[in-house]
């Protein structure tokens, strides 16, 4: 055939296919009257159609093993091929010894290449074989035959759930019966730590007498694990996870390639039950990629459309299984089985005879039945209705304080009669004073009167003193009044374990802060938890009532992380708790230790959540337009106290006309200006941040959020990098590009480069990097490694990356020409930091001052210095130093300053009231952040 002929054939074929099948033959005859060879061609092509042409070419080739009938596998003789299942071919075989039929599943030989894989196969398969449960397919034997692994299993007659579902959806009661059996089988396996990970209708077998058996337990995991000797293997499960799961039943975490536990099986179970009830797949799209998208982002079509007869209680169970966040699903298959059983009993018409029959049974049985019924009812209420009682309605909150400004971080006295708190704006370290209030109606009393930043007040066990953190030491003040004094240096977030023992965080080096316990002399010290990151810090910690667990609140760099549950004995680093995507700033235990209360933000606002210890269900306790901050659990009454309020920040412009506000959003802020001005080069635009992401600023003038561009002339503003949580950025000298640092879901910052006119998508310049500064030739940035952060530079096209300064530092500002660095680095052995200016090429260092922030204006003509991140005082001042030579360091004494205020006495220095500013084109133009916070203590009843 030649191309011309094929075009002719194809064209006719097209036309034939448009016709009704009955008319095709006549149509071909008619069209090919003069061309019999064309007719033959078209007819042979049409004949190649078969029943399954829709499936033809929709799948890649297999990797199969072929076994001939009559082959012996140990003492089993292969009789015939039954079919091909999820993990290989299944043969019917004869067990001569016991005279019974068995099924032999021959697995892909690739499962067991090499001794290590073979050993693992046997280990995993044995664990699965140890499952002895009526709803799990029994495995009799495991072996290998010529290097090919196989399983000998019980021989079943019946069909898979898939085959049953092809015919029709199930009646709800039949579906519930099947579902209960599946859930029981899952529960038995999960109890032994075995997760299926590939549950689907093809893996569920319904025997002729109606029993459901789960097939292929533990096998999916085998295929996902990679041998250590496999160089091509991805280093994390991500890739294998995506490829391996059956797409329609994969859980969102499997789609994302994350670690999947038993809750992934619960998700798959939900998808199967949904399909059994509605006859439609829960997630089905034309392509697998779209299906994965639906799993991540969409809810399946409503039951009321597809299967209105399904009872609401059953729908709720399915929906609960299909929650996107594992934390919000049923946490165990036994809970699920229980909920389903309760449902089937409640709706079962056969329950009446069962009760009458019970009269004949022993008293104990009857008693057990009654208590079981009570439990079932409780569980039903818990699962189906409890969620409606939370969050606690605002009408039930009781206001305890009435300040016009803000209070934060409440703590109860040991007898529950007093509250200590800070009066200040910030929820981390805040300038402000320590207060106490006698409950219920006492007037708040101020205990301190100084200008330091403070954090985390807590009562001593005798109730006589309040300890609090002044970065990063513990101070103490008597409750009855008296002088505040430094009590324990290098100790923050301190709490008393009992009269003689303490738990607190201490700086081990740099800003790596670990959680320790010790006696009062600090002689016997023991580490409880050390954050993995070298810039990880535990800031707050809470011991469980049984003294076995600690909830640690931690920060990496200047970003809060998820809370973490760690064993008090420090034996393991523990696990993150609370909603999967939520950062967490404070926590508490219920007095009985059953609930962990968390102050978290899983969207745009901080609220109180709670999770059942240790990894149970998660509930939101407070909601609404306010944000809640801090948690004090009353030791007596069933209530918590938290600071409820609204914080608004806006960006202001200062210039020769005075001060005026520029932004209208409630959470507008400036990015860290250390490596770039927020103003465009022509001074016509301002770039600022809006918090629309689950970040939380550690201070009001260092924002985190979405980047917005504001036209100063017209006042029009728009988001220009939507979806990125940005903490700092730098504009290129030619004004065309922007380099910015954005925080990923896992908290890791990445430096991106994008064109400001958005003519191309942002691209990654450097992963694990922050603080970019554009210079004419390079982007300077801070590279985060496991050992610490180092200064690098790279060409803007990503080439020629090099480390330029040897010291491990904490924060970086780069002069606009790249010659000087203003670096913050730890003072050895002390919880203090030094700001230094480094001429990196000439290896010269000029100390500036302790605990200060310093940076250049974009034109290089000014150097700006203000108080450091941790030790910020009330009445902060910013110093603007005009430089005689652009891009140079300010002229300072060779050993630097002992106090930043000495700058005021230097020449060419202007003093500006307030914190960090974003410098504009002229010395008199700058942007700054104004904050208004109103926050008071409320008591929230719990149920």
């Amino acid at each position, binding site marked *: 055939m030649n191309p011309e002929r094929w075009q002719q054939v194809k064209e006719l074929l097209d036309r034939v296919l448009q016709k009704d099948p009955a008319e095709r033959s006549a149509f071909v005859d008619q069209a090919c009257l003069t061309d019999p060879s064309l007719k033959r061609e078209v007819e042979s092509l049409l004949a190649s159609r078969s029943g399954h042409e829709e499936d033809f070419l929709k799948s890649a*080739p297999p990797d199969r093993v072929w076994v001939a009938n009559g082959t012996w596998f140990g003492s089993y003789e292969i009789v015939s091929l039954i079919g091909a299942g999820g993990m290989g071919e299944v043969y019917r075989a004869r067990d001569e010894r016991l005279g019974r039929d068995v099924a032999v599943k021959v697995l892909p030989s690739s499962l067991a290449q090499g001794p290590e894989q073979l050993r693992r196969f046997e280990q995993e398969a044995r664990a699965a074989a140890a499952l002895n449960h009526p709803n799990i397919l029994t495995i009799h034997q495991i072996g290998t035959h010529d290097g090919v692994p196989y399983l000998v299993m019980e021989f079943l007659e019946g069909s898979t759930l898939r085959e049953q579902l092809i015919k029709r959806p199930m009646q709800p009661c039949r579906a519930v019966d099947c579902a209960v059996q599946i859930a029981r089988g899952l529960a038995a396996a999960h109890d032994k730590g075995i997760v299926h990970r590939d549950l689907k209708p093809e893996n569920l077998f319904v025997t002729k007498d109606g029993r459901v058996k789960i097939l292929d337990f533990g096998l999916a995991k085998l295929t996902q694990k990679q041998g250590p000797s496999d160089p091509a293997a991805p280093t994390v499960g991500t890739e294998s996870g995506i490829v391996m799961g*059956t797409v329609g039943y994969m859980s969102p975490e499997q789609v994302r390639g994350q670690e999947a536990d038993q809750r992934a099986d619960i998700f798959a179970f939900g998808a199967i039950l949904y399909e059994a009830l509605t006859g439609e797949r829960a997630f089905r799209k034309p392509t697998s*990629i779209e299906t994965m998208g639906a799993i991540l982002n969409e809810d399946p079509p409503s039951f009321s459309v597809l299967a209105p007869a399904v009872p609401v209680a059953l729908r709720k169970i399915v929906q609960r299984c299909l929650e996107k966040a594992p934390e919000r699903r049923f946490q165990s298959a036994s809970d699920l089985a229980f909920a389903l059983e309760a449902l089937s009993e409640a709706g079962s018409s056969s329950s009446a005879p069962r009760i009458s029959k019970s009269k004949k049974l022993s008293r104990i049985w009857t008693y057990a039945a009654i208590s079981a019924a009570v439990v079932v009812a409780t569980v039903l209420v818990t699962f189906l209705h409890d969620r409606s009682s939370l969050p606690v309605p605002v009408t039930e909150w009781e206001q305890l304080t009435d300040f016009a400004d803000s209070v934060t971080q409440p703590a109860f006295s040991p007898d529950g009669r007093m509250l200590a708190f800070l009066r200040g704006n910030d929820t981390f370290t805040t300038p402000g004073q320590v207060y106490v209030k006698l409950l219920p109606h006492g007037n708040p009393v101020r205990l301190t009167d100084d200008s330091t930043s403070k954090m985390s007040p807590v009562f001593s066990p005798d109730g006589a003193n309040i300890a609090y953190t002044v970065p990063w030491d513990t101070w103490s003040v008597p409750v009855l009044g008296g002088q505040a004094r430094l009590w324990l240096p290098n100790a923050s977030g301190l709490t008393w374990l009992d009269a003689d023992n303490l738990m607190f965080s201490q700086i081990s080096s740099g800003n790596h802060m670990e959680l320790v316990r010790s006696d009062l002399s600090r002689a016997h010290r023991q580490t409880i938890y050390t954050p993995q990151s070298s810039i990880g810090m535990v800031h707050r910690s809470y011991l469980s009532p049984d003294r076995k667990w600690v909830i640690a609140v931690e920060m990496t760099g200047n970003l809060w992380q998820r809370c973490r549950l760690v064993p008090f004995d420090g034996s393991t680093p523990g696990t993150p708790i609370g909603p999967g995507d939520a950062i967490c700033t404070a926590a508490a235990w219920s007095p009985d230790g059953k609930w962990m209360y968390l102050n978290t933000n899983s969207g745009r606002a901080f609220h109180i959540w709670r999770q059942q210890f240790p990894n149970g269900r998660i509930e939101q306790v407070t909601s609404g337009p306010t944000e809640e901050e801090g948690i004090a659990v009353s030791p007596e009454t069933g209530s918590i106290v938290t600071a409820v309020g609204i914080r608004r920040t806006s960006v202001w412009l200062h210039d020769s006309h005075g001060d005026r506000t520029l932004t209208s959003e409630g959470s507008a802020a400036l990015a860290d200006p250390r490596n770039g001005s927020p103003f465009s080069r022509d001074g016509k635009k301002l770039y600022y941040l809006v918090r629309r992401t689950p970040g939380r600023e550690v201070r009001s003038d260092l924002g985190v959020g979405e980047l917005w561009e504001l036209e100063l002339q017209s006042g029009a503003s728009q988001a220009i990098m939507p979806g990125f949580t940005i903490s700092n950025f730098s504009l290129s000298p030619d004004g065309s590009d922007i380099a910015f640092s954005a925080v990923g879901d896992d908290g890791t910052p990445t430096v991106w480069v994008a064109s400001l006119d958005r003519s191309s998508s942002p691209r990654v310049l450097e992963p694990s990097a922050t603080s970019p500064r554009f210079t004419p030739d390079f982007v300077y940035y801070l590279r985060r490694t496991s050992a610490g952060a180092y200064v690098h530079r790279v060409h803007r096209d990503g080439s020629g990356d090099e480390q330029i300064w040897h010291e491990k530092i904490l924060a970086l500002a780069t002069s606009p020409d790249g010659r000087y660095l203003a670096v913050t680095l730890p003072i050895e052995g002390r919880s203090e930091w030094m700001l230094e200016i480094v001429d990196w090429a000439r290896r010269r260092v000029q100390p500036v001052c302790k605990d200060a922030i310093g940076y250049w204006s974009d034109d290089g003509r000014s150097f700006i210095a203000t108080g450091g991140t941790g030790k910020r005082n009330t009445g902060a001042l910013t110093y603007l130093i005009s430089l005689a030579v652009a891009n140079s360091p300010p002229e300072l004494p060779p050993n630097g300053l002992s106090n930043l205020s000495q700058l005021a006495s230097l020449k060419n220095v202007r003093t500006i009231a307030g914190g960090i500013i974003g410098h504009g084109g002229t010395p008199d133009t700058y942007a700054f952040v104004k904050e208004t916070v109103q926050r008071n203590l409320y008591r929230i009843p719990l149920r």
Partner: protein
Amino acid sequence: MSAPTSSHQVTELLARWRDGDFGVLDSLVPLVYAELRKLARSYLRRERPDHTLQSAALVHEAYVRLAGKSSPDLENRTHFFGVAARLMREILVEHARSRAAAKRGDGLPRLALNEALSIPQQRNVDVILLDDALRRLAALDERQCRIVELRFFAGLSIEETSEALEISAATVSREWTTARLWLRREIARTSTP
């Protein structure tokens, strides 16, 4: 895991290619090929026939790894898939050939077992036979061959294929139907003694 460092490189190459700079293909192909091969090697080893993802997922995965998750540029994506489909075909054929060579003499049928047994849920096809048939189809109609590559090896939908080849979806659909008929007949002819 962070994206590989070559991520922005790929994105940029794709952008340049889209803008008509066909010279970048020389730099792009080796990157994509290496990534696909790496994925394919670990993937083919544990492949399972009843999974609908397979090569399509692989290509998608390679795209995510190379171009970065946050690269939403659909045009880039279809261009990428255009390149990847051809490479994927080469990789699968190479794999099938080496496997066949390793097993020669074992009496392994050329046609996949399940295909021969006509087990309905199986949709396997012998890649070597398909590759031969595609070569012959390309001689008759290059565009149909491309359509099959994109649909089968990269898992693109009709719409995505139409976007990649800049032809109407109706045309893709028609050509896909007739190409499959032709391939099916060709494969049946070569595999039946």
